């Protein structure tokens, strides 16, 4: 049984429920409000349901299944204690409209996370409300937009974005109503200061950058970028997707940024869940703090009568920033993700620096091992660094352009070949500035043995002939999926027989 809709149990099948408090016939709705045709849902007993989803799960690849070097996504291990904590009634059974004295414990965790994120990024105030990285970006550029409005600088309508940026950067800026100006990178993949100098003017509102950049390279001239943008009156925005490389080593604040978003589902191990949920808090410098979405958590010493509910003689309360842009999520953000990330943070504490060092150590080691194995096998002519460098940060790019030219083997072919070796494929064809790009991020939670084995398998794939690789993968639940067919013959729901 491979399709949920093949389950056609008897009417009334499903998990058992108590009786209603009054007989069903006591409900009388007018005709126009009454449902006439029941949803054509399948009917499953619990054993059937459990088997269906177990079967599906076996057709899915997660970090738990194997090495997941998906660049830009920071697929690190998700500690299981985080899941246990997130299901405690003190978070799972909390309603965001409960009064402050009901949720002092949760608010203290929120406050601890705000402070920790402020310290790590060198920012003055964090809000935990945005629920994903893209929403964090959007929230931050909205705050900057209102900041400029409050200063009468309404002509600042342009957002500068490097051509190597994540797609969400320009999309978020455009959604907030900004005009997006793309800044070309230098030949070596780094920021071109002259291009930025040429692009900034009195219409510049924000420059959005991620550092390390999407090639996994640290932008050494980041301070000069900040100087140029600030001199033109603009603000610096840090895309925190690549934050995992630098905790405790440097910070967006030290680099000269005014605002930053964090991806708790990358850096702080909130599980990706097959596409979400995430959590995308933002941090800002003081001049932007009053524009943040509210409420945020502040603490103060307790007052008389609060002892019974308080934690460690402190009171945690909601605070509304005075010039707030309003809300981006109706409640208080993805509180469950914040609690999971809190458990992760507690695991490392000030050792978050060690975590980042190991993320960088693993990326450099894997890059080294791939080149080492390729040389041994004599296939080091098939790829090169996506950009010239001596060291990389948490991830690196390879260009398969030589393999494409010499043997007709594309980055996608190698990706599919790696699936057959039992790995998740690295990110391919991003960033767009590297031809036949493969972007590899091992994270700090992979052992040296895994990295060595991957390097060997990577090189084995390169030695496979083009024709065989074009046909890969062959060991996966399905083989290459026809995405063009999917788009031309749209089938977005189960086709019922009667239709």
């Amino acid at each position, binding site marked *: 049984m491979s399709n949920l809709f093949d389950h056609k149990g008897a009417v009334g099948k499903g*998990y058992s429920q108590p009786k*209603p*408090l*009054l007989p*069903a016939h006591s409900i009388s709705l007018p005709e126009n409000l009454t449902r*006439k*045709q029941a949803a*054509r*849902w399948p*009917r499953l007993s619990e054993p059937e*349901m459990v088997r269906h989803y177990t*079967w*599906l799960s076996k057709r*899915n690849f*997660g970090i738990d*299944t194997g090495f997941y070097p998906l660049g830009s996504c920071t*697929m690190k291990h998700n500690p299981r204690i985080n899941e246990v*904590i997130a*299901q*405690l*009634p*003190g978070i799972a059974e*909390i309603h965001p*409209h409960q009064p402050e004295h*009901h949720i002092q414990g949760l608010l203290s965790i929120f406050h601890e996370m705000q402070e920790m994120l402020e310290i790590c990024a060198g920012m003055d105030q964090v809000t935990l409300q945005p*629920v*994903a*990285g*893209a929403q964090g970006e959007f929230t931050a550029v909205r705050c900057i937009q209102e900041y400029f409005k409050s200063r009468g600088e309404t002509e600042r309508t342009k957002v500068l974005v490097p051509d190597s940026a994540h*797609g969400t950067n320009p999309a978020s800026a*455009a959604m907030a*109503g900004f005009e997006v100006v793309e800044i070309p990178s230098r030949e070596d993949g780094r920021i071109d200061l002259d291009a930025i100098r040429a692009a900034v003017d009195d219409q510049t509102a924000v420059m959005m950058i991620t550092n390390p950049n999407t090639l996994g390279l640290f932008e050494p001239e980041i301070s000069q970028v900040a100087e140029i943008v600030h001199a033109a009156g603009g603000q610096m925005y840090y895309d925190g997707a690549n934050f995992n490389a630098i*905790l405790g*080593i440097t*910070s967006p604040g030290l680099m000269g940024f005014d605002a930053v978003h964090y991806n708790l*589902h990358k850096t702080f191990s909130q599980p*990706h*869940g*097959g*596409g*979400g949920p995430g959590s995308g808090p933002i941090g800002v410098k003081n001049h932007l703090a009053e524009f943040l979405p509210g409420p945020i958590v502040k603490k103060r010493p307790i007052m008389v009568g609060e002892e019974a509910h308080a934690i460690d003689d402190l009171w945690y309360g909601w605070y509304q920033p005075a010039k707030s842009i309003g809300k981006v*999520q*109706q409640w208080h953000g993805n*509180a469950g993700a914040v*609690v999971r990330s809190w458990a992760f943070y*507690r695991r*490392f*504490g*000030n*050792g978050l620096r*060690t975590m980042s060092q190991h993320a960088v*150590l693993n990326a*450099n*080691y894997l890059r080294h091992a791939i080149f080492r194995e390729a040389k041994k096998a004599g296939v080091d002519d098939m790829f090169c660094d996506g950009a010239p460098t001596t060291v990389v940060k948490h991830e690196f790019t390879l260009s398969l352009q030589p393999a494409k030219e010499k043997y007709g083997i594309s980055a996608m072919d190698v990706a599919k070949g790696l699936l057959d070796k039992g790995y998740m494929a690295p*990110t391919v064809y991003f960033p767009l500035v590297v031809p036949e790009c493969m972007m590899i991020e091992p994270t700090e*939670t992979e052992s040296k043995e895994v990295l060595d084995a991957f390097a060997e398998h990577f090189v084995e794939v390169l030695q496979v002939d083009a024709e065989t690789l074009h046909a890969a993968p062959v060991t996966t639940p399905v083989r290459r*999926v026809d995405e063009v067919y999917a788009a031309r013959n*749209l089938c*977005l729901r*189960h086709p019922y027989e009667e239709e």
Partner: protein
Amino acid sequence: MTGTRTVRYAPRRGEVIIMVDQLPNLGREQEMLAEMGLSDMDELFSDIPAQIRMQDGLPLRDPQSEEEIIADANRLLGNNVALCDRVSFLGAGLYRNYVPAAVFAMISRGEFLTAYTPYQPEVSQGMLQAMWEFQTLLSELVGLPIANLSLYDGSSASAEALTCSVRVHNRKATQKNVVYVSQLTSPDKISVMQNYCQGGGIEIRMLKHNQDGTIDLESAIEAAGSCGVYVEQPNPIGLLDGGITQLKEIIGKNTALIVGVQPVSLGVVEAPGKYGADMVVGEGQPLGSPITGGGPLYGIFACSQPYLRLMPGRIVGRSIDVDGKVAYCLTLSTREQHIRRHRATSNICTNETLIALMGAMHMALLGPEGLNHLAVRNMTACLLAKQKLSEIQTIAIPHLHSNHFNEFVVELPGKAMDCLAYLDGNGIVGGFNLSAWYPNRTNWLLITVTDQTKAEEIELLAAHLALWSAKAVMA
């Protein structure tokens, strides 16, 4: 900058012991560095200019072991008042419904939990198929042909529906860049809508309601010629409003009718697709997910054909592989940010897939009759609560004779704020103070029941409301 000191790799003894369970290469740094021809971890960071290096370590607490973390979590979160420990009538958009055990068991499988967005379909068939099934379940539930695999929450789903309506209808609209939203809508939700709409220069106007809480159909004609109209069914004060089923006829073909739903209600209440809704959105949470402090939730988004190519979010299509075998993949990606960048229909990337999966699993277990039964349990509990509270002479139920799904307004003889404090002192989370939404309704309390509400709890609430309001009348 002078006196720069670089951070050397030197984990303290405690650090090694604590973090060794998360960092497999702890203690093997020199071996790995040596193989790269390096001698110091710091050489890996030689590209970071000295003047922007952190001078000292992070001023954060020391690492903790798992056992210490769980102890602290129990201490802090155990200090919270969980709704399961109280008698609760708090809802107002999020609902404490039972989630079957099998749902938690199944989403805990690491293959689902620890996967990324299914960019490599060959090894992501499980989640892709589960989401394609989710699209079908939701499409059947709301009566529209297309559903995406979730937006962040109900508020971002409604906001994205409004901007989508402008993309689709603005060219022909006589009221360009204008949308209408029910004036009863929660101000927090309207705030989200405003943030999403302002960038496109979209103006949000309010749609009026009658004194009895129903939509003012006569003034709704003003919305004809705008791009979209947003209403909720049940509405924010719990009413099932028959007027909403006539709205599409009034606003016409070229104005999108967007209906926000409480999905469980659709086990009894007509699917909005059947009365002309062009888009259906809402908080998916009551199907499959705990409230979790207000997130993660999942925003549902469904629409009819004309909106398909301009809608936000990811969508799964059924396709074939090279052998002609059924296979699933993400499709219509050219709408999305990773392809279309600043011309994308939305900036959304990470969504709420895992929570949507919980929804799919709950729907699969319920079946059509199970959903109907669940809705009936909500509605009969609401009927019973209305009956019991209507017997109290000192309080009023302004919409007593209207149809409700699972919440209704009580008008108190004093401030709702004071009443809630009194109930709290007696172990009851008494409901939602509606003055937070409608500032002049200081005496309005929104009472919510769910499938978890017991008859004794309603009796208890009635007894305490009678006591409190008798005192309030005297005062």
